[in-house]
């Protein structure tokens, strides 16, 4: 059971207080998009062994969605940050680089 800190209300709580929401930083493809773009938006997900960005909602707390950078292998949490962004903020990227120098970066 993971421990996560909600960046909105600041509470650190265990997994049962949160609801997972899958991969973060997906770009929505709506009407007019190509089949390939739509397919990738709807169905294709990363499944890395290592650094991963995820959506979580503080469902039994403040109700806010936020994003977490986490290692899927060791379960280390590099940081959590507000959902209102299209890519990981610089301080999160720096925190990951410090722990995982070999990480290829967010793409």
């Amino acid at each position, binding site marked *: 059971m993971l421990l996560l800190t909600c960046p909105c209300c600041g509470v650190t709580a265990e997994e049962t207080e949160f609801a997972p929401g899958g991969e973060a930083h997906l770009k929505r493809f709506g009407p007019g998009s190509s089949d390939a773009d739509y397919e990738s938006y709807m169905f294709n997900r990363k499944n890395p062994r290592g650094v991963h960005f995820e959506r979580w909602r503080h469902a039994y707390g403040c109700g806010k969605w936020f994003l977490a950078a986490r290692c899927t292998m060791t379960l280390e949490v590099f940081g959590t940050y507000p959902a209102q962004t299209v890519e990981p903020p610089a301080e999160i990227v720096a925190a990951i680089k410090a*722990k995982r120098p070999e990480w290829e970066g967010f793409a």
Partner: protein
Amino acid sequence: MSHRLKTGGRLIDRSRDVKFTFNGKHMKGFAGETLAASLLANGQTLLGRSFKYHRPRGIVASGAEEPNALVGLGKGDRYEPNQRVTTTEVFDGLTCETQNHWPSLDFDLLAVNSLVPQFLTAGFYYKTFLRPRAFWKHVYEPVIRKSAGLGKAPSPDARDPDSYEQIYAFCDVLIIGGGIAGLQAALSAAETGARVALWEQTAHWGGRAPVDGVTIDGQDADAWVAATIAKLEAMDNVHLRLRCMGAGVHDHGYVLGYERVSDHAPGTDAPRHRLWRMRAGQIVTATGAIERPLSFAGNDLPGVMLASAVRDYVVNYAVSPGQSVVVVTNNDDAYRTAIALRQAGVGVPAVVDARAEANGPLVAEARAAGITVLTGKGIRKVKGGKKVTGVEICRIDSKGTAFTEVFDCDAVAMSGGWSPVVHLWSHCGGKLVWDDTHHFFRPDASRPPLGADGAGFVRACGSADGEMGAVLMGAHEAGLAAAKATGASGTPPAPATDQVPDMAPMDAVWMMPRNAEYDLRMKMWLDYQNDVKVSDVQLAAREGYQSVEHTKRYTTLGMATDQGKLSNINGLAILSDALGQPIPATGTTTFRPPYTPISIGAIAGGATGPVFQPLRRTPLYDWHAENGADWEPVGQWRRPYTYIRAGEDRHKAVNREVTNARTNIGLLDASTLGKILVSGPDAGRFMDMLYTNMMSTLKPGKCRYGLMCNENGFLMDDGVVARLSDDAFLVHTTSGGADHVHGWMEDWLQCEWWDWKVHTVNLTEQFAQIAVVGPKARQLLERLGGMDVSRDALKFMEWSEGRLGGFDARVFRISFSGELSFEIAVPASQGRAFWDRLLAEGADLGVMPYGTEALHILRAEKGFIMIGDETDGTVIPQDLNLNWAISKKKDDFLGKRGMEREAMVHPDRWKLVGLETLDGSVLPHGALAVTGGKTANKQAETEGRVTSTYYSPTLKRGIAMGLVRHGPNRMGEVLEFAGPNDARIKARIVDPVLYDKEGAKQDV
């Protein structure tokens, strides 16, 4: 024969007799001992039959690792199978029975399996039951089912009368294991000021050290243990628990502890078990080590036991497993057993030592006591049938074709070395390293389980860490380091010093003798509980199994209820040898929680019966309960399915309610309906994205039915939207969908359109909502007075707000029944009074509440769809002929792109139609329309299915809706639906709207 010794027994109270029964036989033990000790004291060495071969089996161990001695404990409602006698404390009135034999323990007919063991080798089931195929269903499966399973499940009528509880707890440092290492780690951590919890799975502190004669600062270990417990108990920051097993270490320091609160003292009002849900900053495992058996022929006979267990029984409980015990070993530690036996006056014909030389201090002590020590030898085989009668000895490096010596004895104490209990270290990803000196896996301190911050959060100490000598200094360091890692800063005093004798190196002996022939190997048990032998693992290797995980599953090694606590390392060693590779190259199987099985009761805790899950009640719940409500669960709500009156069954009650709503007035408690307020300057824009139809053009005061789809285009929810003002909408969702839809809105607003100015609130529970339905509905509301609800003032699909009969009301002129209908929302606190008022005012108009089933029938007669009936997550609005509700003007809405996909616009999609059986009967729910043809898979080809089906009291026959291929183009065609027992039911495709197609009745 096993027996009670005249003196001794550090844990028993000879002044307190305990009476119990074993297979109906009355026996006596002493307070303070385990059931295993009591049984041995009564001379009961045969305790069960093995799983496959039904071989006679007895006690092997003295703790949680016991594979054989499982019994059915208790009676009736308190019966529990597969309880280990070694971890069951004996108490007055205990009853137990042996398992897995027929007809009796002493005479078991299925032991015939043992005569042909070559038929039950590794992979027996896979190999044997493949052919002929037809035999599987009627011959093989019934036979396997009959013989499968260990123990008997409790009766299905049994109800557990005991209570269980769970506790959330927090600490800085959790120490698991209350031996001397765990005690020292706890003391050192506590002395820094950290909050410390210490758990011990048995009923006693101190672990093995007092049994093994360890001295601490010159005193015997018991004295140090007592003094240390006294110190710990006096500290406010320390929490001690006996009979509490660390069951599992989970992510980020979450630990489950299984406390057996009153198993040993039934009849109190204490819960039986307690599950600790501990969040620990740091964890120290001091879980000790488990002795390994040796693999020699006949090592499973009752009377062959672990050397350490023999020592435990003698020292702790004054019980000897025999009159004459041969000790067989590959290490110095087992000499402690020989010495303890000799001191207790038990005969020790010889210590058989596999090593070429034996000359450590313990060996010297044994020799000085006059015990014969044979070196370079091993047991060729154990003699005996249901009990040990002797052993044949041979040279350790031989094939074992002939014996060199024979000893008469009635018990054998074996020691193949020790394995640290690394389970808790490993549960959460801690890695192991192979130790070439002690021949075991121990925790690799450089690769611990990692916490949220990426740092290790588990440390091992004592023999759990592979430390086989003095442990207190290491335990002190582990406790201190753990405390420091949580931020504690105090400095504990130096630890005590434990003195242990030097030990000469052990020899790895994985098979005895080392070059044993096949007929010996097929009698060498690795996994006692699952009957896996050396020859089985070797066969698996020959058949190409290389991965230890595959071999485990193929041979079932380590898959029994003991999870291979005794067998894993021995099995790995045999596999590695067969594969010609070192043991670390083979690796271990995965250690998974719980450490030993925990009760389902503890997992459920208090969440049983009425508090199994929270119940949501509408403001009218009590009225329903008092008036014959036949409850139906709807999500976490309870709604009346119907209200049953005297002399009625469900069916009659439902029909009465439907007919009354169509002729007089029906009242429906619609409070569970989702009510979400969407407001803000961008609310209209947002509503247009949520719904397939246009909502931004809706005028204040008006209502509109709308559809919500997910991004796949699949229908997710539906309901009526009311525009409250220019910048506010009230969204009605389905009863089950309110929370999900609200979450869905928030997701889009927070994560995609976060710059849109929209606010949402889920108001579902703030209002009681009552549908007043039927031709006389308006008449009733007019009697209440206060609002103009005339046809012209409040038109169909409009809403208005005001005081209705003195209540704060919002009246929606909408209909889900096809009748003249008003849905009236009042504040939840006024709900019951409003409902009572409607009933009173409308009594002479024939007002009558109706339940959810009548609601369904009313809507089905009108051809209205229901989310969850007509939809199943793969249905798009177009399938339900709802194209009119899909805006063509909007550039975008959720699901629009999904609906454009090839499969969604395919002409062969099944579409909504009405169905009418030719004989008037009610179609079975979910029935499939069959074409009579076959698919490529030779299954019946289908062309449709029933989605809703009811008896219509209005039309006096069965009515249904369904999805049918090209359905709307096939009006009048007759389909065949598959019913039970291969019945074929004919039904005609008709318009789904079967009642008042023009809508004249709802718009009056």
